[in-house]
């Protein structure tokens, strides 16, 4: 399935405005959460669940793994767009500093661009969301871009079809 079914609940393209802030997501990074994340996303690198080992690699503490951080961006976007959205790309997901256990990571997003593309099943809305993670010392991941496809109203197709 390459386009967005119109019947799904959630945000529609014409409801989106550039500059719109997505509701933040706050994720306390406890040992418990990091261990659950490692078990479920299969990144068992000891730097993510073993303080002693993480320190032997030069880090201050164990820290959240890549899959978890990236999926936190999906959580932010999915909370905002609902079932109707489809994530088409993630770019600029750059990890600048470690997200250590014992801190709270906030995930923030802002709509930075919108456009309409013609797909095989008609027009589809493309929304670019700038996303970043922040810890106590500032930005830890990103800002990068999540590209989301959203359904456009049938009226858009009628008005824009020659």
């Amino acid at each position, binding site marked *: *399935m*390459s386009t967005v*079914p119109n*019947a*799904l609940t959630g945000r529609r393209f014409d409801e989106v405005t550039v500059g719109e802030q997505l509701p933040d997501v706050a*994720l306390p990074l406890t040992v418990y*959460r*990091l261990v*659950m*994340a490692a*078990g*479920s*996303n*299969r*990144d*068992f*690198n*000891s*730097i993510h669940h*073993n303080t*002693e*080992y993480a320190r*032997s*690699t*030069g*880090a201050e503490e164990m820290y959240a793994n*890549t*899959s*978890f951080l*990236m*999926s*936190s*961006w*999906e*959580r932010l976007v*999915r*909370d905002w767009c*609902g*079932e109707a959205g*489809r*994530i*088409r*790309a*993630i*770019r*600029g*997901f*750059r*990890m600048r500093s470690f997200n250590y256990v014992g801190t709270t990571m906030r995930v923030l997003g802002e709509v930075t661009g919108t456009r309409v593309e013609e797909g095989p099943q008609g027009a589809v809305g493309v929304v670019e969301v700038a996303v970043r993670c922040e810890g106590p010392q500032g930005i830890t991941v990103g800002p990068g871009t999540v590209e989301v496809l959203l359904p456009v109203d049938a009226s858009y197709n009628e008005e824009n079809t020659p």
Partner: protein
Amino acid sequence: MTAVDTGSPDWTEQWQEVIDAVGRDFLEGETTWGGDPVERGAIRRYLEPLELDCALHTDPAAARAAGYDDVVMPATGVIAWTIPAAWRPGEVLFDSEDRNAQPVHTAINNTDLGMGPKTTGFFGTDIELDFDREVVAGEQLGRRGKRLVACKPKETGVGRGAFMTWESEIVARPGHVADAEPEVVGRIRIGTYAYVPHPKKDEEAAR
């Protein structure tokens, strides 16, 4: 592999053969398949530490109503579901009782390039993903190829090493159908930093 002399001012020269290998597919087009097909239970567990609530991922009826064959894998799950099995029957995975001993082999930690300096530290730095379509429960994912597209030696706060970028295609096939023709469903670029950690202060003092 050669040992790294962390005190040498010319330590970056040891990375030259890796730099020269930029453009090479280290897997020569081979596909590395995830250890398991995408499964409903594994998706549910993936969502738990995220507290991510979306019926497309958890409710087969909702997913089918939306036009999918089964529940949809979270898009970012492409990393988790392309990780190979950690252990296979007959293998020994743990051979030491040391508290922090690492498994004999792992698909996550730094893999031996077969060239360049030996490094003991490793972490991911950045990722780019493109998704051509959703993946649903029952499909199996793999990464086809592993092309080195960049290598830049650099000393950082944690050690001396190199930033490298690797590119692969994401392919899918019906689960448990090993001879099915893989379909490209996306692409992934992964940045990594492989390094030799700086000596700790007490180790330096002992020198």
